[in-house]
């Protein structure tokens, strides 16, 4: 029998996430990758402000809690403090990364800052109780869009991977999800690549993970997973949006 083993890079602290929330799955994938690359001792993680604010309790590597949206700037400082040794990742929600921290996101990508960004797109502000996010879908009902997101009033969702792919800077951008075993495997591959790129000095690597928030979507965990397939993926297609090294190999 295979015993379910906890990755070393995760602490023993029990997650505080709601039942059916995919934050926990992504934490686990990140920790597995840290284990596989053997980089825990030189990794510094940056937690955001959002439901994953207490990620600093869950990872065994050194952890920093950043101000809302500022994780990429903090990561820039930590990375530049010791570029040869430090492996730095941020873990950010959509409000954190694509609203209040948009400038930090875009400019760290433009600088091709050699960091790894794990971006949890759950189309909502989870922590504050379900308000409209920059990634909430047109028509999506939230606490602050109670009649559905009206694009004529508050505009369109931000497609982060598509937007950043227009920059020359970033090394690697991929959108994945974790709503099925197959998709979790893909997500793991992408996260592994995003960390490996950093180890190899390749530069800014961002993995956008379409995630669920059953609590604030007002759904059962199972329905939430379905909603990712039916509503989110059509608007936010999965796939690689940029892979500079792969592109170079093709050219060569």
């Amino acid at each position, binding site marked *: 029998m295979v015993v379910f083993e906890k990755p070393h890079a995760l602490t023993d602290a029990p997650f505080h996430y709601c039942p059916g929330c995919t934050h926990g799955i992504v934490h686990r994938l990140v920790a597995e990758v840290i284990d596989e690359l053997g980089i825990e001792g030189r990794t510094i993680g940056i937690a955001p402000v959002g439901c994953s604010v207490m990620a600093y309790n869950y*990872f065994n590597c050194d952890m920093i809690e950043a101000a809302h949206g500022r994780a990429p700037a*903090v990561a820039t*400082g*930590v990375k*530049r403090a010791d570029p040869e*040794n*430090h492996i730095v990742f941020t873990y950010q929600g959509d409000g954190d990364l694509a609203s209040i921290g948009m400038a930090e996101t875009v400019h760290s990508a433009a600088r091709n800052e050699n960091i790894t960004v794990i971006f949890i797109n759950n189309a909502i502000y989870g922590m504050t109780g379900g308000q409209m996010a920059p990634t909430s879908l047109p028509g999506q009902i939230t606490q602050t869009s109670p009649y559905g997101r009206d694009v004529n009033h508050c505009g369109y969702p931000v497609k982060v991977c598509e937007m950043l792919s227009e920059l020359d800077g970033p090394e690697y951008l991929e959108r994945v999800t974790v709503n099925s075993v197959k998709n979790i495997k893909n997500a793991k591959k992408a996260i592994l690549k995003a960390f490996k790129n950093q180890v190899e000095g390749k530069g800014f690597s961002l993995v956008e993970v379409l995630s669920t928030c059953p609590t604030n979507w007002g759904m059962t965990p199972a329905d939430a997973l379905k909603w990712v397939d039916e509503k989110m993926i059509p608007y936010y297609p999965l796939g690689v949006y940029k892979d500079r090294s792969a592109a170079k190999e093709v050219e060569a």
Partner: protein
Amino acid sequence: MADKVLMKGNEAIAEAAIIAGCRHYFGYPITPQTEIAAYMAKRMPKIGGCFLQAESEIAAINMVYGVASAGLRVMTSSSSPGISLKGEGLSYLAGSDLPSLVVNVQRGGPGLGGIQPSQSDYFQATRAGGHGDFRMIVLAPASVQEMAELTVKGFELADKYRMTSMLLADGTMGQMMEPVELASLKVNAAPEKPWATNGTKMQRAHNITNSLSLVPEELEQLNFARYERYAEIEANETMYEEYLMDDADICIAAFGIAARVSRNAVDEARRQGIKVGMIRPITLWPFPTAPFKAAADHVKSFISVELSMGQMIEDVKLASECRVPVTLCNRAGGMIPTPEQVLDAIVKANNGGER
């Protein structure tokens, strides 16, 4: 005596920071302090350091937060509007007990204001750098030499007490050229930082840099502990200079450029036989309460000379317990009081408020 070189105040700050072992600078251009960034941009790559122009003051202060978390000496500089943007970061640095040096070469405000010298960020620096209960050590140089010395001191105090030191200068001080002697600057190496988040190397439990504390009883204890440290600073690190105070009937309170102007006025008033002296706070926080309290025993009045609408005057009143009148002699919006204006104020005070 060691060699003196002619330097701008802003450049002296930059070079002194490098001498103090700072190898990371982040900033966003704003007049009148951009020479610091320009100097760092030239020097840092030559000495294995890192100069990075940030996309905003917000990003810059958070890059500072990152380097400080990793346990290295780090700085940023800006001028008034940019310091307002750094307010969030200053609060987080305080909440996470991280050392850093932040330079504010002040200009006139509020809003976009102007680009001429000012001291109108005194309240912001000494009371409200950002949200929450916290202090910064605020250092006010009055010469280019002091810009260099207090930069080094700022790093040392920041490390010693795990907090932000703010060098509070103004446009005149930043642009002014004076001879400085850098060779004699004494630097204490940074202390060990076992709390730094710079990788566990699989040899210790993970460190966490954090300002979140959701249990009020615990957050209160953190605040108590921080304020105990602040009390230690008040007891041990207060700095000021007294000038002709022994027999003074009138006491000028002034810092930075205002103190230089006032000194001329004091000298002239003395020539006219008026017994006037000056207390020049070098630390604005902690404020040198003791000398003002002592002076209140023998002076008839205080005059607070400021490049603002009157901010330090509140601390002078508090320190002297309002036992004698405290008047304001000021200019604002980028204007500087002249020695004549200060002399007028002294003469008036000497005549018991009448000219």
